[in-house]
């Protein structure tokens, strides 16, 4: 057992705990309320004009099975885990009988794409400006840029996205403000389509970057200004090592480690932001799906999405956590 392996196992334990807690909360929220999800859903479907009694009876059966209405609450709980483990979340109600997992898989790439790209840009941009601003404390341009990002920081995701929507949708309509691609686009892979998807992702990504970069910037700036006073940095400066090299390989490398930990810790919040942004811009990802599911009263889809987002974020946190010692050999693996 190498120390690294022990570290990975510990982190994996943490990952399992998150999944356990999250799924347990999701389960008990839905099962300990006075509302009968089956009748609720049936009601919602009949309101939507679905009135074929056979289909409704089928649904009632599948719902009873899905929520494991038979047996004690603990049996139902175990049953829920089994279904989750096999990826079988039951049929969707608003798009009966398509399985929930199929619908989620359709939206997942959009969310993962938007979140990954915008998080990468946010992280790199925030840390780069933060490191520079921490090292060149007197530079006016850097101060101004930092100030702009820090001023964006306290504005709630929703409000900033909303303001961007007004600016680029009503006042100066240059960018598409809704959807992930043109309505009647030909979905065969082509250069035009890629360009179109990129164009549609500018605003959602921009709102995430504007709101998110400030916190990395502040953290990095503080870290760098603390490291500057360390003996080895002073020694390097006296020894005439070029400034750029000091910043890159002496300061930034050491400051990045806590930032990576921070990245893992804030993934949940980043995911929240992505979901909200998708809702504002009608981006065809998980967030939009979640809202549609709520409005359609699609019980199994909402449940599946909640459980999946917890598992997904936990998995991403686990991956980043396990990678961070590889980035920096000095990290404590205890």
């Amino acid at each position: 057992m190498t120390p690294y392996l022990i570290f990975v196992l510990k982190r994996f334990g943490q990952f399992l705990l998150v999944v356990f807690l999250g799924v347990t909360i999701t389960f008990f929220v839905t099962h300990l309320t006075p509302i009968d999800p089956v009748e609720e859903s049936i009601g919602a479907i009949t309101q939507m004009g679905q009135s074929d009694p056979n289909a409704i009876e089928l649904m009632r059966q599948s719902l009873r099975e899905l929520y494991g209405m038979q047996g004690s609450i603990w049996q139902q709980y175990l049953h829920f885990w089994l279904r989750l483990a096999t990826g079988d979340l039951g049929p969707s109600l608003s798009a009966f009988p398509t399985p929930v997992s199929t619908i989620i898989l359709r939206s997942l790439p959009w969310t993962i794409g938007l979140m990954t790209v915008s998080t990468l840009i946010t992280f790199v941009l925030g840390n780069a400006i933060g490191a520079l601003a921490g090292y060149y404390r007197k530079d006016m341009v850097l101060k101004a840029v930092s100030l702009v990002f820090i001023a964006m920081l306290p504005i709630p995701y929703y409000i900033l996205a909303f303001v961007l929507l007004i600016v680029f949708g009503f006042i100066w309509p240059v960018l598409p403000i809704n959807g992930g691609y043109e309505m009647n686009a030909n979905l065969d892979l082509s250069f035009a389509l890629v360009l179109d998807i990129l164009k549609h992702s500018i605003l959602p990504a921009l709102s995430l970057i504007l709101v998110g970069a400030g916190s990395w910037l502040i953290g990095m700036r503080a870290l760098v200004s603390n490291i500057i006073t360390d003996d080895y940095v002073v020694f390097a400066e006296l020894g005439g090592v070029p400034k750029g090299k000091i910043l890159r390989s002496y300061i930034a490398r050491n400051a990045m480690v806590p930032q990576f930990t921070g990245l893992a810790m804030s993934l949940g919040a980043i995911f929240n932001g992505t979901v909200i942004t998708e809702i504002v811009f009608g981006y065809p990802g998980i967030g939009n799906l979640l809202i549609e599911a709520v409005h359609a009263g699609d019980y199994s889809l909402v449940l599946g999405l909640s459980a999946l987002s917890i598992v997904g974020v936990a998995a991403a946190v686990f991956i980043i956590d396990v990678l961070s010692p590889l980035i920096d050999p000095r990290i404590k693996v205890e």
Partner: protein
Amino acid sequence: MFTIIRDLARQNMEFLCGLLLFAVIVGLVILSYFSPYGATDIYLLPPDMPPDGEYWLGTTSRGQDVFWQLTIGLRNTLYFGIGVAFLSRIISLVVGLVAGYAGGAVDRVLMAINDSVMVIPQFPLLILFYFVLKDNMTWVALIVIMASLGWSYDARLIRSVALGLKSRPFTTQSVYSGMTMRKILVEEHLPYVLPIVFATTMNNMIWSIGMEITLSVLGFTDIETPTMGMMIYWANAHSALISGIWWWVAAPVAVIVILFLALFLLSMSMNEYNDPRSRLNRMGS
């Protein structure tokens, strides 16, 4: 306490600005108690009047005065934020102090739970809660749910301070003089942690009010109570922007930005005050 505030206001521009902006917010909240109209009354006034001398910020399509509606909404939003902050501070103080002081297995268990709560994405969970509770989703319920999701980050911070306090001689002395753990934590450690708690309170309010606004705008809270988010919700429901009634949306957005700037500036300057290293930087520069 007051000397600290006075010193901060004198030396620290950010704190002063934050304080002034917050004073504006508090002023609006106090005004709300003198509102000539009921909080939920609609169609009292001519709808869609632009801002003028009589209706300072215009009226809504539902025949409400935007200004008075704004003050009442702000009041509810602010009380919501304070409620969540208060409850979640209690949880994070207990968890942080106990984990830091007790150490060992207690610490490990508490921190494992803490880290799990930290990475769980709250937004889908909150929507799930609304979806299940629907009309039973009162503000009290939402405050409790939000508080139980929003304590983990600060508990970790408090724990790191508590760890440092544990190794200080005065703690050892208290142990040898026979104080119980509860007494040590409440009487000896708590005063050291309180300044940090104040700074985290602001951050927590930023988070919870932001969530409230998002959920309300989507219509996922109790839509009978006017809040900042609800104002935007109703404005959207009446497509205020498209029909050119911009003041209905601009007013809440502007006030939200002021409120958040105030909280943010206060929390930033308090953090700086709590960190002696950056205070030295300030003096040196």
